Structures are given as C-alpha cells and as structure tokens.
C-alpha cells in the first residue's frame, strides 16, 4: 500500500476535487474522476465506493477535529487524556484511509457530495459542544462533548465494519489486500473507541443521577470544575 502525507482538511492547496452539481460549480481542473477505482474494484459500483470512502475519510478528518476541540475544553484530566489519545489514533486513521483510497487508484483529495453532508453533520456535533455554552452548566457541557464523541464513534465504527464487508466482495489481489491491511490496523481501535465512549457516557450519566452532590443549583463554577476533575479517578489513565 502506498503512503500519503496526512491531510486533515482538504482544500485547493492539498489537491481537493469534487463532483459538480447543478448548484455547485467546480473549476474544470478540480472535477473528480469518480470511476478511477473501477479497475481495482472489479464488478463493484466504483463511483459509489469512491463516494463512500470519501465520506468515511471526511468523518475521520472531522473526528480528529472533534477530539482536538473537546480535549481543549474538558475539565477532566482522564477525559482529556483519552481524547488526546484517540485523537492521535484518529489522525492515523486518516492516513490509513487516504492510503487505501490511493492504493485503489482513487483520489484522496476527492470530496464527495455525501462527504459534504457528513461534514455538515459532524461540524454540527462539534458546534453543539460550544455554541450554547452560555446556557449550559459545566457538567452538562462535559456530557455534551461526550455525546458528540459517542455519535462520531458510532458512525465511525459502522463505517469500518462496512469497509471490511466491502472488501469481502473482492477477489484476492492487491485491492483486497489493501482493504485487509487497513481494516487490520484500524478496526480494533474503532472497537475500543466506541466501547469506551458508550461506557463512559453510561457511567457519567448514572454517576450524576445517583449523586446528591450534583443537585446543588447554587454550585460555583470552581466547585463544578473540581467536581468534574475528580470524575473517573478510579480509572484515571
């Protein structure tokens, strides 16, 4: 499999291409070749797979941004450490996907229409973590950030399951091998991410629901920060 330099945001300068539509104008040299994977993918619907892999790549890129955003805002050291760790792994997932797309003959810079929609979805989740700060208490904000991670990791996990399933339709050869290598590297981490996110969310909610200390509406911000900082002390990484 070829390797590529990681691109965390696709732009003109990184070689972005896309598909022109009625309401989207694209300069001729930036029009994507969406059937570029047809030789590698045999009987599969190559343009659709190209769109889907672009979508999955966008989700990884947005995931990387999400982890950086929540790591910079959380008041809990365990969460911060985990967000940073998973963020770094997600950066590697970006590299793996870009390499897979290149190995299949596709354009890592291709941004499909579904990738655009995914970006809208994902940035919406990121924005929910900070755009309403004024009407959220700090504990709710922590939960919101974790919610965004659960949402992101759930889709991410599903994407990699599907990528693995797609590879099963291929005959043995370089393309199947590229899929297999990518999945072997990423899937265990994705299992870990989604399980951790869901379990941590469960713990955060049950912990708050059962703690009388959390009820005080007059709690100061300082007290809340101290309280949040001590969450998960038993599992600090």
């Amino acid at each position, binding site marked *: 499999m070829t390797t590529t330099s990681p691109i*965390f945001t696709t732009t003109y300068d990184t070689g972005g291409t896309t598909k022109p539509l009625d309401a989207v104008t694209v300069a001729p040299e930036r029009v994507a070749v969406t059937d570029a994977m047809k030789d590698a993918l045999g009987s599969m619907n190559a343009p659709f797979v190209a769109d889907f892999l672009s979508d999955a790549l966008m989700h990884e890129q947005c995931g990387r941004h999400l982890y950086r955003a929540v790591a910079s805002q959380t008041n809990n050291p365990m969460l911060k450490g985990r967000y940073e760790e998973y963020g770094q792994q997600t950066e590697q997932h970006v590299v793996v996907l870009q390499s897979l797309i290149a190995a299949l003959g596709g354009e890592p810079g291709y*941004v499909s229409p579904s990738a655009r929609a995914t970006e809208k979805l994902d940035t919406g989740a990121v924005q929910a973590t900070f*755009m309403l700060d004024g009407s959220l208490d700090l504990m709710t904000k922590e939960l919101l950030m974790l919610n965004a991670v659960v949402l992101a990791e759930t889709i991410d996990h599903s994407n990699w399951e599907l990528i693995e399933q797609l590879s099963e339709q291929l005959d043995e050869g370089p393309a199947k091998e590229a899929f297999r290598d990518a999945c072997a590297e990423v899937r265990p981490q994705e299992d870990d991410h989604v399980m951790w996110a869901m379990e941590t969310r469960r713990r955060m909610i049950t912990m708050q629901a059962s703690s009388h200390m959390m009820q005080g509406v007059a709690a100061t911000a300082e007290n809340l920060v101290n309280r949040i900082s001590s969450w998960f002390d038993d599992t600090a990484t």
Partner: protein
Amino acid sequence: MWWRFPAEDPHGVVTAGYDVEPTVRLSRHVHVHPPRPFEVAMAFNPLTEKGMPLEDQLRSWNDMLQPPYDPETVDPYTQTRVILMNGIEVESIIFSHQFHRHTDNPDLRRQLALSRRVEQQQQKAINWLLPGELSPLETTIGYEQVAVDLTAWLARHEPDPLLKQALDFALLEDFDHLYRYANLYAMIQGRHAEALTGSLTEITPGRPTILEHAHPFDLVRPHYETHTVHPLSRLHVMTIVAAEQQTMNYYMNHGPDFVEPIARALYAEIAQIEEQHVTHYGSLIDPLDSWLQQLLFHEYNECYLYYSMAQQESDERIRNLWELHLQMEIGQLQVAAELLRKYEGQDAEELLPPMLPDVPLTFEPNKEYVRDVLANQVDLRQDGFGYALADDLPSDHRYWAFQAIQNGGPVDGGGTAPSEQVIRANREAVGAEYRDETEGPHPVIDLRRPPAEDETEMAFSENDEMIPGAAR
C-alpha cells in the same frame, strides 16, 4: 504606540522599499516616508506575521478620525480604495453581528464584540476620509467606479470560468449604472462625471438598467465548493459581495436624500439591481463553512485587501492607514485562528493557503476588457442557474413576466423606468446625453449615441459648469 512594517517577510523575500522608519503613529501626527515602488513581492503569510495584538487596537477619537482627502486633487483610485475598504469593514461588522446572534457562548461573544468594536473604528477611520464637499451623487459615482473597475479586475484575474462569468455578467450592469448616474449628475448638478472619475473609467451604456430587472429565482447562482475553490476565487467572491452589499446599503439609505423626483426614482431602481447583485454574488459562497471558518476567511480577506491597497496607494497618509489596518487585521486573524483551534479543533493553516495569492488586487483602468465583455455579453440574461441570450428566452419565461410588472408596461416601449427617464430628461435639458467614451464609439452598435446627437455635445463652461440648453 509605534508599529513597523516588516522589512523582510518570513520567506526571506525583501519587500521593496520597506524601510524600518515608523510609517504612522496612532495619533493625528502622521509621519511620512518616501513613496515605495509597487513591485512588492506577494510572498506574505499573515499567519506568520506578528501583527498588532487585538487588545492594543482601540483608538481615541483623535487617533481614529483623520482629515478627509481633498476632493479636487484626490487620485480617483484612492477614492475607490477608500470606498471599497469601507464596504469591507461594513461587511465584517455585519457578519460579526450575525455570528454574535447565532451563538450563546459568552467567550465567543466577547471576542466578537471586541473585534467588532475595533472594526467599527476602522470603518470610521476609512469612511470619514470622504470629504463633506462631495454630494451623495458624487459619492455614488465613486461607488459605481469601484463597481466597474473592481468587478472587471476580479473577472480578469478569476481562475474559475463560472465565477468569472458571474462577474462579467454583473459588470455590465454596474457599468450602465455609472452612465445613468452620470447623466443625473449632469442634469441636476450641471457637471461632468469625468471630473470625478478622471476618465480612468469610460462612461457609456452597459446592459441597459431597464433590462436588468430579473425574477429573483434566476438570481441564485451555483456556489463554489469550499474544498476545491482556488484561494483567490474565495477572496474575489468575498470582496465583491462586500462591495455590492455596501453599494446596496448606500442607495437604500441615500435615495431619499434628493428633492428631485427623478433622482429619488433612479436610486430606487438601481438599489433594486444592487439587491439582485448581492443575491447573485452572495449565492456563490459555499454555505458549508462554519461560522468560525467564515470569521477566519473574513479576517484573511481583509489582510489580503489591506496588503493590496498599501501596495498601490499614491497618497502617503492613506497608505499609512492601510498599513496600520493590515497590522490590525493580522492581530484579528490571530484571534480568529485561536478561536477556531479551541472550539473546532482546526488549525488556521489547514484552511488557508501558505501565503497570500501572488496577485494583489489593483485598481486600474479596464477599458478594453469592459468593451470586450460589452460586445459579447450585453444580451445575456440569467436563466435558472445559467445564462441565456434574451432572444432565446421563451415568451412565457418568468423574466418577461417580471419585466412587465417591474417596468409597468411593455419593455420595448421603455416603460416608465427611471433609468430611461433620466437619459431622456438630460437630452431634453442640454440637447445630448452625457458620455465619456475615451476609446472610440460604443462597441455595441445599438448602444451608440443617437445619430442626431453626433454633432451635438453638451457645452460646458471653463469651470466645468454645464450651460443649460447650450450646444455646440
């Protein structure tokens, strides 16, 4: 507080004439240094410049308000630069207010409020350079000169053919507005508009304003795609949106300044076309970008534009202002970058090009270009997401229905459109309409001066005052 423009950019490219003398002080005491040549390299990355910290940017009244320029001696393109950059600051303020209303994050709101307050001061520092001696109509002619030479320059340098087409299309409409206002000026102030434009921009019909009124559905263009758009294209679109928005706002507010019914009516009509232009150009922007990304792009565009204005400014005092504002914008860009990194986890360097595009926006004559577009595109109309020749629009096209409503009668009769009335009225008053065709006869035969006027031109006294009814 002193600030210094960099003598050398971070890439090691020496910028011509950038000495280390202080160029401006944040007070009414303006220090000057010798003019610099214009061949400044554009290898400039605002993200790597120090700039002026945002918290140091607030100014006193004395620092903010400088004397206006002299309308008798000003370089017409200095005036266009002032008008453009005022519009750019107004856009930044309006955008910031909209962002403010769409977030409930106190930290963001406070940062926006501080930046916006500085931008308000920048806007005052720029717009108050306009001299009070200028009538609203004279300022309007300046606005239309901006529209023509800005749009033409952008079109000439636009990499994306469909975005270029959008610029070419509206160019001909603003070009016509200049001609209509110039005739109004001749009629009610008795002066030649070329005294204002310096004949750097021709004044002659474009796509006749009466024909410009289109159904709003046809104004909506396809937008660029944010991951693939050329950095220069993004800056072009943001710039033209801001400029047209300011023009729209100016006409919306200054139309009622006039006593003369024809003036009031002409402003009302052209203000409607400016509304069309703001829709037309505004629809080119990819709405996928987040608020914080848009904030970053706004600040980056302002850096690009102040950098560009400083390169070409012939007025030392005003060039110092552009340079000061560039340093301020760099500081504002840094704040926007920090907010983006903190809240959306994205580095500004991921979104922005490694350096400013190597094409500083320049005000300069575009006469041949405008004539070429006129000759080839005057009959174009908007049709859905595309364009069509007027003759190719079916008789039941919504364009014709809209025309019939807007112009209150059959189009071919001239209707009651104020833009037609003003030309007729001026012809009746002085025997000929006003034009400033420096490059020969109009490139479109149908738009040439009526034969009866060939031998008749308006007569003006030596002090450029029109002699009503006189002909030579």
